[in-house]
């Protein structure tokens, strides 16, 4: 064992470490930006996975993502080629994107053989087979690649190549005294023996009898050998990558032992115990001391039984304790021991943190987001974690290196061991280059002779061109083509649809305001279809009521507002007068049952009481076990009845108004002031443009989702409520807007709400498609009646909505009726074994900000966020649009980008397959028994997603949008760095402008055709895959009555 005492390393520490404490801290702070910023999983806030690089252009950031995290930047080439075959990308799109990118350079000749445009197009559109060394060897030996040309090669090309090669070969059989001194080939091949070898010395007459196939084989073999020789001789050697290798990486390569795994086996349980929010029954002793100190406390115990490699750890640790070495001191001390030079410190520490980035990121979250976490970590936890990790690494490295016999001596010398650094991603080997040339030669008809005679200069140019159009670049091109295809379809549809004049219904029966969420798009469409005299509107689902909310049955307050907002107000739900006594009883019952189930929960895990429980009550567990799995829906109904007995009485009210001037969490401070309430109402109404023409009913519908056995449940809730359920916001909004005093304040501001208008709040469960309405008993008689008749229509719309959702579930038949669809989604929400309760935001692709009239009756396939905004009511400087976009952009872009990254690399950026997930510390999930903490979305959530950057379509002019981008850096960053796509819809015409390369360019539609369907159902029935855009007649008032259809099916 290496001596870790200070005397040995003392002088080297003072000598070689030039960083002071402050430097080291700032280095760590800097590295922290690269860690995942996902907080506890029970409040899941969607955000840009590569937020750390948001200041860079999108594709540059993707490249950084490859370098830093080693994650995939795009879908695989194979996946893109599938999309090409399916028509999700057309050849035309690739050509267009490529010619736009290359401009005049597209016509540059490459090696005199082809143009750059043609070469790149061929490389991108046809699959390139690029195995690693062994794979390629196998392909040569075992497959037909040297016997038959690729299937894409046309008959004429094939014939031409084979003929010319045959000619070439036969010509060489007759030696001549040449008068011209031929330049030696750039491939270095000596022709005569080469051809001799290729034909296996077959005689002339034998070669005459060769079949076409034999000649094809001859041609391909010659081609392959020429390509290999040419590529090997002429490829410019790249400089080796300078990426730093941690000693752990080196030892893994040299000794084959994963030091990180050894370290993690100790470090992960300790970290999990330190961060634990209450899963374990015995809290880490000494947690209050801090991470580093607690670790020292534990590690200082005699470790007779400890892991071999940490056997003498306690001696080292006791020395640290005795000398009062702080975490930062320890890092200072260990860096030179590990052979890390001062200038490498940042890179090394970053990599050290990234090697366990899920846990490191969570530590940082619990340390810095203390207000959102039940049991926050003290400051300095991450530094402590880093120090402990390095300490453990030192011991494990020493042990492993010695055991493996690869090294003895000082720890720093491990870095001198011969190890080859990781090759840069997407770098081709010489053989792979040869393979590309070989395939291009077939596809573009370059004969072996041509390549044989190709001068050295041209070989170099060809290889350089091929290498510059790397896998990353090819996929980038395909990605752009993929996005172009969908964008053009969408913009064509918007243009065509915007041309049609919209007829507003008169009188308007009701107005429904939902969240902008893409899942509400279909609900709104179906509401409009079943009740064409209803208008729908969209606003972020917290309806500007930012609050800490505590329901009657809740133990704790939940922040209900976007993740970047910190609420200043508290709202409590209270039991209505006259129901207090029954509430007290129910509350007691709940408490008793709660305590009982907690005891059962804990004691089933203990010894003696567990034994009694298991023996006597255990067999009864088979009842819920069997019923929940075999009959989920029925079981849910039974337990619902049981819960009803203890449930909060439905007669509750919100305490919304406070008496004191300042808001707070004390009894008198709960709620808003009337002015604040009027401000909230005014903001939402002005943002959406619903400032006049009020119907007698205005419904506000917040949303959330409920599913079983789903640690990511909160990710399915409203994004604008930071992963919580938005029902209370809608309810609070309605209650405020119904208050005559507030209405009076609003009237002073110019918004007159007629006395006959009633606001009703509701909550849409997007998983089981139920809507629950609040405070319905307070409706007066005539409104009440029209409310209930409207509710019937809503239920009908919900059934159609469920049906539209079901078409994407592979396990739901396509022949379902709306009633069966409702049943299907209800089962999904109650089924313990359901890994896909709903598809959440998967397939989101558009965010439309503008008047609903211009998208109403357009089938958007649940792919669009819809924010209502009326440019005609905006101020001249578009101040309303600015604040609308400030709220909608981060939510929509965050969701879109999180889906993008989790979809292109589910195991790297996402949290992988959800089946082995294991909830740890009540903070997140690990994969299986022990792993890094996994962040992002699971592969089940993103499997049907189409990873394209979200397309914002905003109803405004280029001038106003430019001024908005000037005024808000966050919006500008997202748009200018192309993290989102942007198009503008002219408020007065159907002209669109597309934001491209920093400017707004008028969009010329590819097609003016938009299919027409009687109803959404007529359009989407019988098909699971992607649906194009269509115009749906049913939602047009007066033009189409869908009574016939609804009768038929219901």
């Amino acid at each position: 064992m290496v001596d870790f005492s200070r005397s040995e390393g003392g002088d080297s520490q003072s000598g070689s470490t030039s960083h002071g404490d402050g430097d080291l801290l700032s280095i760590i702070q800097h590295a922290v930006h690269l860690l995942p910023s996902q907080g506890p999983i029970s409040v899941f806030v969607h955000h840009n996975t590569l937020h750390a690089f948001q200041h860079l252009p999108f594709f540059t950031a993707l490249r950084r993502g490859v370098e830093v995290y080693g994650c995939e930047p795009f879908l695989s080439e194979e996946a893109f080629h599938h999309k090409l075959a399916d028509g999700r990308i057309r050849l035309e799109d690739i050509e267009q994107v490529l010619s736009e990118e290359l401009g005049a350079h597209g016509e540059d000749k490459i090696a005199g053989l082809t143009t750059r445009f043609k070469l790149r197009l061929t490389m991108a559109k046809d699959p390139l087979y690029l195995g690693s060394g062994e794979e390629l060897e196998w392909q040569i030996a075992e497959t037909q690649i040297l016997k038959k040309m690729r299937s894409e090669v046309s008959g004429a090309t094939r014939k031409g190549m084979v003929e010319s090669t045959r000619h070439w070969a036969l010509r060489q059989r007759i030696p001549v005294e040449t008068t011209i001194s031929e330049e030696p080939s750039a491939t270095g091949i000596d022709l005569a023996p080469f051809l001799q070898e290729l034909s296996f010395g077959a005689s002339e007459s034998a070669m005459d009898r060769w079949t076409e196939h034999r000649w094809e084989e001859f041609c391909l073999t010659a081609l392959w050998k020429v390509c290999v020789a040419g590529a090997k001789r002429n490829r410019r050697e790249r400089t080796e990558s300078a990426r730093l290798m941690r000693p752990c990486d080196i030892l893994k390569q040299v000794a084959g032992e994963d030091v990180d795994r050894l370290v993690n086996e100790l470090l992960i349980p300790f970290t999990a115990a330190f961060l634990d929010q209450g899963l374990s029954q015995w809290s880490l002793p000494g947690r209050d001391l801090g991470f580093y100190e607690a670790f020292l406390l534990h590690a200082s115990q005699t470790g007779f039984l400890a892991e071999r490699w940490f056997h003498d750890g306690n001696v080292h640790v006791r020395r640290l304790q005795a000398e009062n070495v702080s975490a930062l001191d320890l890092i200072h001390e260990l860096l030179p021991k590990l052979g890390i030079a001062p200038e490498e410190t940042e890179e090394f520490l970053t990599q050290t943190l990234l090697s366990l980035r899920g846990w490191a990121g969570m530590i940082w979250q619990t340390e810095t987001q203390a207000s959102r976490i039940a049991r926050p970590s003290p400051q300095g936890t991450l530094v402590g974690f880093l120090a402990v990790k390095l300490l453990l690494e030192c011991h494990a490295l020493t042990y492993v290196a010695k055991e493996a016999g690869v090294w003895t001596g000082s720890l720093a010398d491990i870095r001198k061991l011969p190890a080859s650094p990781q090759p840069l991603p997407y770098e081709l080997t010489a053989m792979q280059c040869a393979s590309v040339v070989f395939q291009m030669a077939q596809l573009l008809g370059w004969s072996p002779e041509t390549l044989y005679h190709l001068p050295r200069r041209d070989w170099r140019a060809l290889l350089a061109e091929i290498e510059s159009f790397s896998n990353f670049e090819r996929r980038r091109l395909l990605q752009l083509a993929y996005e172009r295809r969908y964008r053009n379809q969408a913009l064509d549809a918007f243009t065509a649809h915007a041309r049609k004049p919209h007829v507003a219904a008169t009188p308007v029966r009701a107005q429904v305001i939902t969240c902008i969420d893409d899942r509400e798009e279909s609900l709104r469409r179906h509401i409009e279809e079943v009740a064409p005299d209803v208008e729908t509107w969209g606003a972020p689902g917290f309806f500007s009521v930012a609050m800490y909310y505590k329901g009657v049955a809740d133990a704790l307050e939940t922040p209900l507002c976007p993740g970047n907002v910190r609420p200043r107000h508290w709202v409590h739900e209270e039991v209505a007068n006259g129901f207090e006594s029954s509430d007290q009883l129910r509350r007691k019952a709940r408490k008793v049952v709660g305590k009982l189930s907690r005891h059962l929960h804990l004691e089933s895990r203990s010894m003696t009481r567990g034994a009694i429980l298991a023996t006597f009550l255990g067999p009864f567990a088979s009842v819920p076990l069997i019923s929940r799995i075999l009959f989920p829906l029925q079981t849910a109904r039974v337990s619902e009845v049981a819960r009803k007995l203890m449930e909060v009485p439905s007669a509750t009210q919100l305490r919304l108004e406070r008496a004191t001037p300042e808001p707070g969490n004390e009894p008198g401070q709960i709620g808003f002031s009337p002015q604040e309430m009027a401000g909230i109402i005014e903001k939402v109404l002005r943002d959406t443009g619903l400032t006049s023409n009020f119907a007698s009913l205005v419904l506000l519908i917040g949303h959330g989702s409920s599913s079983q056995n789903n640690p990511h449940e909160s990710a399915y809730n409203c994004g604008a409520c930071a992963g919580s359920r938005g029902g209370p916001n809608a309810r609070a909004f309605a209650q405020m807007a119904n208050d005559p005093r507030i209405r009076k304040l609003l009237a002073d501001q110019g918004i007159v709400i007629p006395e006959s208008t009633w606001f009703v709040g509701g909550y849409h469960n997007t998983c089981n498609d139920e809507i629950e309405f609040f405070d319905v008993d307070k409706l007066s008689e005539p409104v009440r009646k029209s409310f209930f008749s409207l509710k019937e229509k809503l239920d009908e719309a919900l059934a159609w909505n469920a049906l539209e959702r079901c078409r994407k579930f592979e396990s739901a038949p396509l022949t379902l009726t709306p009633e069966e669809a409702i049943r299907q989604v209800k089962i999904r929400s109650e089924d313990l074994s359901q890994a896909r309760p709903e598809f959440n935001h998967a397939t989101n692709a558009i965010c439309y900000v503008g008047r609903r009239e211009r998208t109403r009756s357009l089938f958007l396939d649940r792919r669009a966020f819809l924010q209502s905004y009326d440019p005609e009511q905006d101020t001249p400087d578009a101040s309303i649009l600015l604040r609308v976009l400030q709220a909608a952009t981060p939510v929509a872009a965050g969701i879109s980008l999180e889906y993008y990254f989790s979809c292109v690399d589910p195991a790297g950026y996402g949290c992988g397959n959800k089946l082995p997930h294991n909830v740890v510390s009540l903070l997140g999930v690990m994969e299986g028994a022990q792993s890094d903490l996994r962040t992002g979305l699971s592969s089940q959530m993103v499997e049907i997603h189409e990873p394209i950057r979200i397309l914002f379509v905003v109803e405004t002019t280029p001038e106003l949008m430019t001024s908005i981008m000037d005024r808000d850096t966050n919006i500008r960053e997202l748009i200018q760095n192309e993290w989102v796509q942007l198009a503008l819809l002219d408020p007065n015409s159907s002209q669109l402008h597309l934001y491209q390369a920093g400017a707004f360019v008028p969009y010329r539609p590819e097609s003016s055709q938009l299919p027409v369907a009687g109803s959404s159902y007529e359009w989407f029935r019988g098909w699971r895959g992607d649906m194009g855009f269509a115009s749906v007649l049913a939602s047009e008032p007066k033009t189409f009555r869908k009574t016939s259809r609804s009768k038929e099916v219901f």
Partner: protein
Amino acid sequence: MLDLEFLSQVLAVTTVVTPLMLVGVLGIASLFSRRLSERVTSRLTQFVGATGIVASVVILVLMLITGSRHNHVTLGNWVILNDPSLHFHFTFKIIFDRLSVPFAILIFVLCEVIATFARHYLHRETGFHRFFLLFSIFQAGMILTAVAGTVEMLFAGWEMVGLSSALLVAYFQNRAAPVRNGLRVWIVYRFADAAFLLAAIMLHHLSGGGDFDVLTGVTNLQTWPEGVVEITETGTAILVGYLLLIAAAGKSALVPFSGWLPRAMEGPTPSSAIFYGALSVHLGAYLLLRVSPVLVVSPWLWGAVIALGLATAMFAAITARVQTDIKSALSFAALTQIGLIVTEIGLGAAIGGRIGQLIWYFALSHIIGHACLRTLQFIRAPSLLKDYGQLENATGSRLLHRPILFTSSLPGPLQVRLYRFALERGHLDTLLTRFFVTPFLKLFRGCDRIERAWANLLQGGVPDSPHHSEPSHQQSESRT
């Protein structure tokens, strides 16, 4: 009456044959790359489970009606050596008695539930068919073990269970950790199997056959658990008992083999639930129950059983309290109960007589109750966050750590030491590696070296063993 007996014999055969047929159908389909649809695969599995439930319940009813307590079906002999000096035979025999019938019903019910669960849960998984194939092997192995009338049949079932379990731990084969942990489970199982195999051979020497009824002194009048062992060679019987105890300890993750149990939580949730929460982890205890009359033979034997059971229960109870992930917490909680079940079996043997038999019945019902409870908890494990939220709301406050009386009264350093012991899971894996694997490898490498030296001497020039030339390999091996 005769008809009823015939019926119950037919049913008894059905319970064993249908799961084996399922293995055949799914296995052959996979072998010839004939992908059955998800629907067909899961329906077939559910059908076999349902058949099994019906058949075993009817057998139970018939046994109650006829009052028969010991229903055995002999399907003939594979091998009989008539030479009296060897006197060896190998019989196919199924026993339905008061031990195997409840256990068989439990197996079928839980397998049916899990098959239904997995049908949705693994929908669209690439490994869907692999899962169901392994699952069918597991089910067949379990049922074979449960109703085996001879030690050989039990061993066959035991091996099927072991193989399918290890492969299911490694179900997510594209990641390293599941494969490594699957291998670890497999190694512990092999070790336990080796002990089992030795026991089986000794049993043959002892009684001439592997039949449990002969071994445990069961006759038509005295059925389990009333059998009385009449063995003259007590020493051999004790040795057999110890070997079986090692086999049971490996399979049921008793101390010191407990390290593999939390590591087995790599597969999809339903397989964790059924294998490590409910069924296969109880198999060791079931084996002890099956041979329980043997345990009575010597205090050394039942003493060891009690000691092992108690040690496991206490170790697991402490360890369970510090686990911060739900699957490990549940697996140690399961282990606690298994430790107690083993203790009960030992106590039953210690007390003996009528009361001892009652304790064995108690142990059996403990197994059944515990299996149901734990399966439910395991498959609900991902609901943990939701459950905690609901509990918090019901009790109206945050759920914080509950101090445990005895640990909080310990002096500080001792508390820390105990906590570390629990957090590092008793260092059992290190212990095994250090005091068992390493010496074992050393010994055999030594043998290897000697053999090579001899061979070299005799013929000259045998290449070195790879172990000597590649120290890194040696290292990684000693860790797995």
